[in-house]
């Protein structure tokens, strides 16, 4: 059985939350991903990922102060849990391990 379930987009979202640290709320995360990875992220896709991650217990959230530019709607800040940290580390380790296991010759493509 898989130890930690973490999809590719979910992983990106988590990494971004980690980057933003205290400022990780919905739109900030979206903008950060879009600017760093040069890709479009739809609001729906991102919130789905956030809901899923929260269900899995990888992140937790708390409501922030409502602000004027949001017409009184509160921000929801996200934070990575210990479990989430483990999941991220696990994901990284497996990838590193796989990279390490690749023989040099394999990616050394030559046309002879």
């Amino acid at each position: 059985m898989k130890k930690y379930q973490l999809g590719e987009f979910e992983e990106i979202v988590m990494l971004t939350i980690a980057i933003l640290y205290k400022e990780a709320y919905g739109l900030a995360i979206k903008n950060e991903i879009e600017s760093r990875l040069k890709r479009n992220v739809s609001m729906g896709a991102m919130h789905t990922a956030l809901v899923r991650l929260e269900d899995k217990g990888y992140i937790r959230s708390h409501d922030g102060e409502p602000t004027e530019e949001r017409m009184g709607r509160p921000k929801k800040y996200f934070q990575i849990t210990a479990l989430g940290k483990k999941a991220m580390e696990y994901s990284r380790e497996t990838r590193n391990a796989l990279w390490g296991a690749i023989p040099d010759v394999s990616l050394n493509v030559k046309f002879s």
Partner: protein
Amino acid sequence: MLNHIEGDLLEDYGVRVAKNGKWKADIRFMLDVLLLLRREIIRPIEGNKNLNTYGMYKSYFKIGWRNLLRNKGYSLINIGGLALGMTVALLIGLWMWDELTFNRYHQNYDRIGQVYRHNLRQGQIQTGNIVTTGVGTLLREEYASHFEKVAIVRGRNEEHVLGFGENQFTQVGYFMQPDGPEMFSLHMIHGTRGGLADMSSILLSQSVARKFFNTENPVGQIIRMDNKWDLKVTGVYEDLPKNSVFYDATYLAPLDLYLNGWSHLNVWDNYNVYVYVQLKTNGDFKRTSGVIKDAMLPHIDANSAASKPELFVVPMEDWHLKSYFENGVQVRSPLMNSVWYYGIIGCFVLALACINFMNLTTARSEKRAKEVGIRKSIGSVRGQLVGQFYSEAFLVATLAFIVSLLLTQICLPFYNQIADKDMTLPWREPLFWLGCFAFTFLTGLLAGSYPALYLSSFNAVQVLKGTFKMGRFASLPRKILVTVQFTVSISLIIGTAIVYQQIQFAKNRPIGYSREGLISLHPRSPEFIGKYEVLRNELKATGVVDEVAESNYSIVSTLGWNGGFDWRGKDESLNDLTFNINAVTPEYGKTIGWEFLEGRDFSRAFPADASGVIINETTAKIFGFENATDEVLIRNRNDHREEFKILGVIRDVVKGSPFQKTDPCLYFFSGGDQGWLHIRMNDKATAHEALPKIETAFKKIVPSAPFDFTFADDDYMAKFKAEERIGKLASIFSTLAIVISCLGLFGLASFVAEQRTKEIGIRKVMGASLASIWKMLSKDFVVLVILSFVLAVPMTYSFMNGWLQHYDYRTDISWFAFVLTGVGALAVTILTVSYQAIKAALANPVKSLRSE
């Protein structure tokens, strides 16, 4: 849509309006909203909907669990009491199961039968299973079409000394024909079932094989039996379980060996064997019985034919519990009765525990009445409430069952010891689990019904308004249940007391000889022949032996019956009367210490005593002589008339069951070389000192024979085994019954005391004394117990009177047992209730009144 997502959208919108203008921002906004329509994020319009009411059941169990935890005391009483009751029921169930599955070990269980015989004697049909070897041979040869196998087996187990090298052990086993092991499907560990084909062969049970050969394969080794016969071991079989007829067979030897030299397989006048048959696959016991009914008639003499012997086959499943005949008709056997009795006791004890549960739950119903009211006003229908209380009952029953399984497992070794059985909990049997499940369910149903139906009937409005009052009769059912509980417990205890009284009564019966310092053994080896005098002198020379004697049968057996005696003035109706015969050496009387009512003992000083006879009191009464010692007894055997002078009349010696009448006995003279050797030890030396000396002397004369002796006292006490077992089991169960009842009472009393805290407080303020409050609280329960006692007395009296009728020698039911039990039950009740009553009475009234 969730607030914070809206916030995100609006913030994004604001940024875009500033950057790209309003129109583009609008479009993006709409797109974003559409893309947000995902299953995970949007909230269902109607909220969650469950497809089943699983959640409700979960809540029932949760609430039930919380209730248990909240009232730990009550829960403990409830679960503990129920677990005790269940343990008793389980133990009894195991015992019944063991009895009912007797002999199931044998594979051909449904096709094996034993030949029984009806006989007409003194106008009564007597039934027995002992027949002649001729019957077996006849069935095998003439009726071969009906039977697959026929095996003749020596009609009781035989004790013999088995020897291998230095090792000598006295073992019990059976002599049977070669088909026997196959018929009874022995599980062979070494060798084959066909191992008895040769006359000098023997099959050993695993335990005996271990004794001699450890774990080695003994097949082919030579075992010496009684120092006479060399037998080759041809196989080893797994020990038979305790619930098999042959459970005591530690070896099996060929019947031919047993008969060799003195009898043969076609005898028609010596009843000394059992005949077992295995029917063909399509065989039918009734039909076969019909066929062999008159098979004996052509072979027996006119005298025997007059008793109209009638053969029939009893199937294996009936041997243990259903082979009890009265006047030729099968009736319920005493053993079957006891299976029933125990079953009833088990049900009663379980019922007691269930009553506890009902009482405690309903007693506390006032506390839960509010809960019921709220549930009803929120919309629970009655069915749901019933379900709730049932689920609580099942929860308790399941917990209790788990505890009782543990308890049973712990108790089982002791229980097996008392019941003399070999029972285990069949953990792997699916049927057992199914039974357990049904059992728990039933208990839950039984215990939960009354509370479930009663509590759910409350009127919601009344309960919540506070006008709800338990009526005057609300506690009536509770009182009835307590009365039932105590009636059962008291009955059980009185019954047990009477069983013990009866045992004690029989133990105190004068037995006609003295058991202390008397040992007996069974000289098996041919080495003993002709050595009686030598051995006697040697033993007496040790200084610790007063006297030595031999007799044909052991002191405590009633074997050896003969008829054909005449005396002066004999009544015609006594013609087929038989006497219990024993042949004894002249020192027998002195050795066992019998007492003379009249006349004198045998004496070596008078050679004429060899044709003398000593009779017991019962025989003397049958003879009816004024002066027995002036008379002679005439024995007619094969037209040969012999006269015996009656030398003396002794007080009855209890040979058979101490609960039955003594049989008429005759003691004849013998010079020695008999089946049993008795040694009377000196009372100057303790057994501890005397026995090694006796053994040394014994080994000097008969070095090869094992010195396997028994104390006469033990032999005699063994006769009480069955009754003592009943007594022990009954006392355990009745103790548990009273414990369970008291547990319930304790709970009830504490509840009542709690309920009346305020009342007690006011009474105390008004000046009530401790004693008066204690009296007030205890009175209710004491009255109930007295009522139960009054109910229990006549019931128990008539039942136990019936039980005692089985015994010739029986105690009168004394009022002592009743009074003692009554006082005891009352004392226990007062003790139980007093704890709570005094606790309540001692409480500070200020505290109880200040609340609210």
